[in-house]
């Protein structure tokens, strides 16, 4: 009888969860499609018409931006995939001395918002005044290297996407049975032939999914093209949507939605292809046991691998950080007179403090909500029926289609058109909801990985010992993965703090986060002040990380004191904050992750 009652109660909860997931993920997509056929801006009375579609498709800009976006998606997809393969290979297969640096480096790059790279490379690549050009000039080379336009966007996006690809690939690369290569060598194939006939085809599914993910992000990314590409006239899909909704007078929301609809269709098709084509070909799981043998002895090629790592570290992390920090101290960009003027000006700015508080709220509360929601869906998915699991899995794919600016646009429609929600527009809540939706995929992956480490027996023994499913969930599972939850919270908070694509259309001065303010300062030409504000943001994030790190450390210290095997599971689950073997491919809101 108890089980029946429990069953009914949990069924109610599951229904509520499904409804919530539906509202968060499905409604925005529906509203975007609805918006594409409206004559009036969101919330105003209007009719259904095809004006939005005709506006969007009669505009010649649409086709050039479509071409640009495809170009960017393909090029960045190819280069990021190639880089990711190279790094995964170096780490898993060679004895290059610096290979141990790669994973931490990639983790930092992955966690850093693309807005940071856009700002930093915008400054770095400024002719004459950028750090890079100052260095070039100092050694007598022409100091006119400009990171801008399509190649600039491609370059910066590749650096960023490489880290995402790396984390998708490193698991399969490490899991690949080395004997497969050895068997090929014994059969008489050299290393090159072995690479072509064995390594490449075995890794093909994983590599292909990296390409598809990079392609989708390349198609939708807004901040890098906006800051680096547009000043030189390089317009892409996302910047065009941004223009329709933000810069056209009056804003043409219908045209923006029409473009967004194309994008949603493309992404749904790609995800479907990926799902059907690749997910059932899991080659890397076919392997027996066998010790992990030594990596390839590279001999004199070691230096090349080390050089690749050093160059990447410089371009993707060291130089941008130096540039942002230096820039923040230069009242006039490129003039090496340093002062704290930017910071004092920021503190005097009445917009800054509220924005910082908003961002802190978004990051802390939004991060916690996203983690809690992901944990809940992951737990339900773990215990639910197959159909339920499939449904939840599908809904976790949906954010693929509504990311970044499109999510922002979708939420504008949702909140202004649905009567009950209209009062929330312009408040902190709407931005918070947008950011939670945008970051659940990241949090979800971390939770999946964490839960995968908790053996089913641990739960079952709790149930057998008399714990209800709720007590088992809270007392055993949640307790065991608490460190992972904190880590996921941190990662999600960082994503949210750096996200400006979602709030850009949603925020008004009252609810705008720092990231939007940084962008606005940058647009106004206050590049060094924007850098200074970003330094403040980074400082806050580092503080948050330290606090959470200390908490996690305390918990871990306590958890590992009893000698139970569960303690090991708890500590082990701290690691997959950036899961190396994703149970489903990375979902991102803006190429951030």
């Amino acid at each position, binding site marked *: 009888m108890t089980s029946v009652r429990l069953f009914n109660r949990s069924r109610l909860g599951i229904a509520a969860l499904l409804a919530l997931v539906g509202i968060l993920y499905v409604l925005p997509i529906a509203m975007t499609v609805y918006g594409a056929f409206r004559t009036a801006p969101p919330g105003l009375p209007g009719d259904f018409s095809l004006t939005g579609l005709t506006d969007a498709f009669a505009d010649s800009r649409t086709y050039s931006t479509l071409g640009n976006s495809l170009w960017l998606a393909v090029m960045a997809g190819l280069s990021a995939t190639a880089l990711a393969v190279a790094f995964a290979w170096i780490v898993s297969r060679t004895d290059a001395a610096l290979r141990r640096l790669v994973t931490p480096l990639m983790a930092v790059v992955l966690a850093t918002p693309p807005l940071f790279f856009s700002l930093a490379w915008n400054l770095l690549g400024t002719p004459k005044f950028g750090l890079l050009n100052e260095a070039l000039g100092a050694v007598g080379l022409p100091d006119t290297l400009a990171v801008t336009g399509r190649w600039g966007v491609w370059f910066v996006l590749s650096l960023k996407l490489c880290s995402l690809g790396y984390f998708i690939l490193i698991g399969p690369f490490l899991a690949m049975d080395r004997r497969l290569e*050895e068997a090929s060598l014994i*059969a008489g194939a050299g290393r090159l032939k072995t690479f072509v006939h064995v390594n490449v085809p075995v890794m093909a599914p994983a590599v292909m999914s990296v390409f598809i993910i990079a392609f989708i992000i390349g198609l939708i990314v807004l901040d890098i093209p906006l800051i680096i590409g547009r000043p030189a006239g390089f317009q892409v899909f996302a910047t065009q949507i941004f223009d329709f909704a933000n810069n056209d007078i009056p804003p043409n929301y219908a045209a923006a939605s029409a473009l967004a609809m194309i994008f949603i269709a493309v992404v749904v098709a790609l995800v479907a292809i990926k799902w059907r084509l690749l997910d059932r070909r899991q080659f890397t799981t076919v392997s027996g046991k066998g010790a992990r043998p030594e990596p390839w002895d590279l001999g004199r090629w070691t230096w090349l691998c080390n050089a690749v790592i050093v160059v990447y570290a410089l371009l993707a992390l060291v130089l941008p950080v130096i540039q942002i920090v230096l820039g923040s101290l230069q009242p006039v960009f490129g003039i090496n007179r340093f002062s704290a003027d930017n910071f004092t000006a920021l503190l005097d700015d009445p917009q800054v403090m509220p924005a910082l508080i908003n961002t802190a709220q978004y990051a802390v509360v939004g991060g916690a909500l996203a983690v809690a929601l992901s944990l809940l869906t992951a737990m339900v998915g773990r215990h639910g029926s197959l159909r339920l699991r499939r449904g939840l899995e599908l809904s976790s794919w949906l954010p693929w289609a509504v990311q970044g600016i499109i999510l922002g646009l979708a939420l504008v429609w949702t909140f202004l058109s649905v009567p009950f929600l209209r009062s929330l527009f312009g408040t902190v809540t709407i931005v918070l909801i947008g950011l939670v939706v945008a970051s659940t995929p990241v949090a979800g992956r971390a939770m999946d990985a964490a839960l995968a480490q908790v053996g089913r027996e641990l739960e079952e023994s709790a149930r057998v010992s008399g714990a209800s499913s709720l007590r088992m969930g809270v007392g055993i599972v949640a307790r065991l993965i608490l460190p992972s939850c904190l880590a996921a919270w941190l990662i999600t908070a960082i994503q949210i703090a750096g996200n400006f694509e979602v709030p850009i259309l949603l925020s008004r001065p009252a609810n705008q986060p720092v990231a939007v303010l940084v962008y606005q300062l940058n647009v106004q030409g206050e590049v060094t002040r924007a850098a200074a504000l970003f330094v403040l943001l980074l400082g806050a994030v580092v503080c948050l990380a330290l606090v959470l790190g200390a908490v996690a450390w305390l918990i871990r210290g306590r958890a590992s004191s009893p000698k139970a095997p569960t303690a090991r599971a708890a500590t082990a689950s701290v690691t997959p904050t950036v899961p190396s073997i994703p149970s489903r491919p990375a979902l991102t809101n803006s190429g951030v992750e």
Partner: protein
Amino acid sequence: MAAVTIRGLTKRYGDACVVDGLDLDISDGEFLTLLGPSGCGKTTTLRCIAGLEKPDAGEILINGKVVVDSLGTFVPPEKRGLGMVFQSYALWPHMTVKGNVAYPLKMRHTPRPEIASRVRESLETVGLGQLADRSVGALSGGQQQRVALARALVAQPGLVLFDEPLSNLDARLRASMREQLQLLHERLPATSVYVTHDQIEALTLSDRIVVMHDGRIQQVGTPTQIYADPANAFVADFVGFENLLPGVVVKADLDQVVVQVDGFPEPVSARPTGQPPTAGEKATVVVRANAFSFTPTPSVENTATPSGVPAEVLTAAYLGDQAEYTMRVGPHTVRVRTPAPATARPGDRVSLVPQPGALLAVA
């Protein structure tokens, strides 16, 4: 056909010396097994022969040709013309059964029609002719093993290496694969080097067995020699001598030594294996559990009969057609196995009699 010569082979991982100055001659067409517990260096030795590891010192000749030496010669694995069966099978998951087996021939630039016929032939040999177009992921463990075998043999290499090929199979399958391997080796002219930790595999398959421990050779011999005349206590233990009784040699002849086993009332005679020890040296008397018989001792006061050793039964277990006992003899616990039914019970005092010639004295 290929003979293999190994001289002074040494391989270290950091401080650990995994193979320590190993010398070995493997003759043409021989089936040689490297036998030993895990970590003894047998797999490393095999991988050095294959060219998958570079030794730190020593040289290896295959068919008289130096493939690796300390002067810097190193023939890579793909140029050594070998076949190898891996413990994990190492079948390429993106190829069909046929594709896997054809691969070594393709790499040797065999003409296409010949590849087809030899692949078919090779798959027939291992009994998988009808599965040629399957994906390897769809096969059972035993079938995967046979594909790996077909792939190793298809190019008719002079030397085939086996790295614990049967250890992932269940006991029944292992026995039948063992028989198949034996038949194959008899039919094919190749030299085989086989690594295992399973003494049954080693005994049934090999022409010669090399027992290894801590990177060194403990004994080289035919299966009969290894089984019946272990050279030292380690080999005896490894090939299943249940009882190892340390003692001191009292008297030594060429074919008979008398050893005073610690705690035994009287010295016992044993047959020395290998170099006979001299009096005063330490020696271990080894004896299999099934080489004993015993008679009940009527009363506690009664001492041993002239040929028996007094013992007390500690445990008795019924194993179907056999009965197994542990018995206390002085400070030792001796394992005894006799045909069933069990005739003694815990607490009984018995007189333990080894079969003639069953006691061996080893170094």
